[in-house]
């Protein structure tokens, strides 16, 4: 057993020291009914690295990796190029195999990194303070709603129809248990989001309005007036961002008056990974809200010799101190993903972040122009960053996506999959374009779409 250092001799010596006759003597407290007479049945025995590698590779090879196909999927998870040095850093054993930095004297590496990470996120979001990360964007979204309830002492949340449907579902699932009221709807297929309709739904019971930016259809709009409307009613504006790269080109939510900004950080440094682990980002514009924030926070302090150092702080909010009175039951953050994000962000810097955003947008414009020319394809958006919605004639988009995949093209996310059963959205296809997309990829998608859209429905 390559991971188990004890030899049989060791085991014998140790049992002797303990005064036990056999290993079974150490399990005497297990009731008879639960004692097994050998290794659990129906599972294989141990295997060599080589055998395990074959097993896992056989599964991996059944998947069409994004890098092996023209790839246009987004809808909350984006494929970006991750510099090779990011993985070098996160594989350092001192980062990879460390625990939560509860002993700060020997965890300054993680702690300083988190302090830098918090600063990067806060600045990207146009906020004062960010936490040390949460599980992912969708759970961060719920935590923001819950926090708005604590801050406003109200329990009604108004969700924009153009919030990622999974995020909305998470919020609604949780609200079932907390008794919060959630007002939401499906997105209307139109060029501009209906912000007036949204603000009209804010009332005096409203704790928060939740708006995605850019929204689920890729649209960008000025949220200042939503912020004003919310603030006028004593509600908070929560802005959700699923594509942090966009914030290298467009105004930050904080600048537009958002009170809480949350989002998915996966785009920077983390990768697709079939949905997880991802990286929940959480920030507040006004430092006065810090003590209502969920999740870990890293703060600066000094050591006994006066040297600068960092510690986890304000942990009186957390469950291991507050138990049932904690602001959240969250225990872990996404430390290693936060590290990956922070390393990538450090490599980018202001200049790289802006250039990356510009390049994403440039290619997305190119793609939109090209795809719009395909007969039977219409571009919905007038504004977008790196993702836009196409309306397709003929078959439902969901079928088209499957057929494209059969032809080796990962052509986008159908709204039919995200909003099953809503007829109005059946023919809409979300197409995301990043710096990893080539002009050849765009041409391939255009040609394949042309072929499939024009086919008579069966």
């Amino acid at each position: 057993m390559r991971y188990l250092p004890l030899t049989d001799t060791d085991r014998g010596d140790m049992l002797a020291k303990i005064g036990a006759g056999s290993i079974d003597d150490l399990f005497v407290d297990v009731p008879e009914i639960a004692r097994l007479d050998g290794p659990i049945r129906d599972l294989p025995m141990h295997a060599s690295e080589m055998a395990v590698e074959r097993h896992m590779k056989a599964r991996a090879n059944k998947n069409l990796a994004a890098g092996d196909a023209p790839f246009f999927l987004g809808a909350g998870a984006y494929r970006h190029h991750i510099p090779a040095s990011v993985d070098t850093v996160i594989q350092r054993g001192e980062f990879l195999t460390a625990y939560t930095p509860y002993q700060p004297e020997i965890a300054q590496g993680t702690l300083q990194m988190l302090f830098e990470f918090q600063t990067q996120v806060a600045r990207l979001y146009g906020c004062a303070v960010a936490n040390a990360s949460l599980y992912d964007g969708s759970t961060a979204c719920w935590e923001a709603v819950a926090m708005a309830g604590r801050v406003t002492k109200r329990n009604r949340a108004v969700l924009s129809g153009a919030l990622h449907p999974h995020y909305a579902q998470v919020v609604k699932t949780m609200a079932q248990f907390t008794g919060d009221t959630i007002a939401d709807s499906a997105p209307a297929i139109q060029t501009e989001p209906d912000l007036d309709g949204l603000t009209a739904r804010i009332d005096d019971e409203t704790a928060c309005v939740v708006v995605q930016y850019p929204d689920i259809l890729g649209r960008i709009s000025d949220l200042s007036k939503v912020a004003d409307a919310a603030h006028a009613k004593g509600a908070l504006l929560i802005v959700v961002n699923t594509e942090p790269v966009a914030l290298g080109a467009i105004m930050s939510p904080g600048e537009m008056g958002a009170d809480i900004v949350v989002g998915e950080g996966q785009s920077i440094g983390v990768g697709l990974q079939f949905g997880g682990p991802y990286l929940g980002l959480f920030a507040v514009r006004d430092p006065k809200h810090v003590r209502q924030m969920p999740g870990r926070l890293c703060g600066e302090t000094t050591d006994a010799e006066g040297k600068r150092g960092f510690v986890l702080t304000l942990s009186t909010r957390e469950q291991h101190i507050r138990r049932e009175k904690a602001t959240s039951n969250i225990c872990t953050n996404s430390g290693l993903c936060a590290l990956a994000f922070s390393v990538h962000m450090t490599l980018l810097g202001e200049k790289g972040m802006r250039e990356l955003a510009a390049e994403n947008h440039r290619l997305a414009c190119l793609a939109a122009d090209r795809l719009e020319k395909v007969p039977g394809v219409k571009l919905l958006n007038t504004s977008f960053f790196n993702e836009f919605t196409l309306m397709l004639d003929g078959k439902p988009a969901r079928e088209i996506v499957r057929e494209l995949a059969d032809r080796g093209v990962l052509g986008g996310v159908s709204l039919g999959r995200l909003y099953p059963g809503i007829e109005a959205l059946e023919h809409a296809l979300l197409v995301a374009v990043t710096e990893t997309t080539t002009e050849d990829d765009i041409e391939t998608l255009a040609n394949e779409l042309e072929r499939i859209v024009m086919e008579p429905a069966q």
Partner: protein
Amino acid sequence: LEEPLIFEIGKAEVTGVDLPKIDPAVPTRLAGLHRDDAIGLVGLTEPETVRHYTRLSRQNYGIDLGFFPLGSCTMKHNPRLNEKMARLPGFADIHPLAPQNSVQGALQVIDELATWLKTLTGMPAVAMSPKAGAHGELCGILAIRAAHTAAGNPREVVLVPESAHGTNPATAAFAGYRVEDIPATPEGRVNVAELKARLGPDVAAVMITNPNTCGLFEKDFREIADAVHEAGGYVYCDGANFNAIVGRVRPGDLGVDAMHINLHKTFSTPHGGGGPGSGPVVFSEALAPYAPLPFVKQDDAGEYYLVEEEHREERGPTFGRMTAFHGQMGMFTRALTYMLSHGADGLKQVAEDAVLNANYILRSLEDLLHAPFADSGPCMHEALFGDKDFGGDLSTLDLAKALIDEGYHPMTVYFPLVVHGAMLVEPTETESKASIDQFIEAFRSVAQRALDGDQSMKQAPYYAPRRRLDETAAARKPKLAWSEPEE
């Protein structure tokens, strides 16, 4: 050399990636919302970046550097094959919403891991999407509440032992329950009589950690479970300590209704300085219908697919969706790799060696240190000590910090709360006897100093990258982000 912050060495005009220059002449479609002001980020070139993080890393302690006896945290070795497998493009580079015909291998991995978890726990169902242990706990309690609600009454109270992890009461409270403590017996286990006396139609569930946080197996678990079921409640088992029994005991045989499994603790996914975790939850038949979406099924043709909101028949009375996609795939590949490596025989050995190592430590230290439950029988995978008889006004914290100077990460301190100045030592199965012997020697030496009241320990650590840090000052006037120094 002290390592500065990136904001002190980076520059706005420096970058470590080569991207096309921005052509301001190209029109944009950004609704006019250009970000004109500086974001406030700084960049480093690759050489500077690699050096910055390499230097930072060297201020960290990790399992790769030495023994990491954090009780209840199960800091075991992270096999490198796991890392390699998780990085295969067929796993790392696939999109969560990719057409399902293009990701059959990934869905198969989720299904295989689910099968392993169900078989190892003897439970019929598992929810894979929870993002971490505490998220798993939440998943379990929400399923319990959903089941009660479906039966007409969500009930009011969840019983939790005093020695429980803080997440237990926090989770129960989140789900709208009132938390009541269950007292412990002097030997460190749940007081069964008092528990039974408290049961009634208002009790929704009990949450018990087994092996418990005192390091003991709850021998009356099955009796408790039967009584809870009798009273119409559910049994939630905190699976944080599953490592002690994996492959040897199936929680399903003990009457558990729901249990989360921390993949990093039992199945060796890396802890990464605080996550990401992954907390699948196994369910009994009674709770299985309430499990969250999505989950993986196989159709008649053998094709895997995700059961989501739209599958009205198959999804059952699910309580809903806990997270955007379908769980921590990157952790699933690692955990499955680990399971395949060990197999049924190896996992049994894992539990046995973990328990053997812990008992060896317990019996090697009990002559010197107060071991409150040393007479309660063998411990499981962790050994618990208290600070009784420490000299001067030395505390467990001082001993912990002195241990840092010996080259070790300290054990868990002040947990569980039921023991004064608790020290919870968990060696795991991936330490050699030589390593443990060396630790015992070091531990005995600092323990003796603590008993002798060696005042120099109050200033420890002396040889760490930092001396003791002022946590009070940090909390009083929080500085949570860097800002440009004022001139």
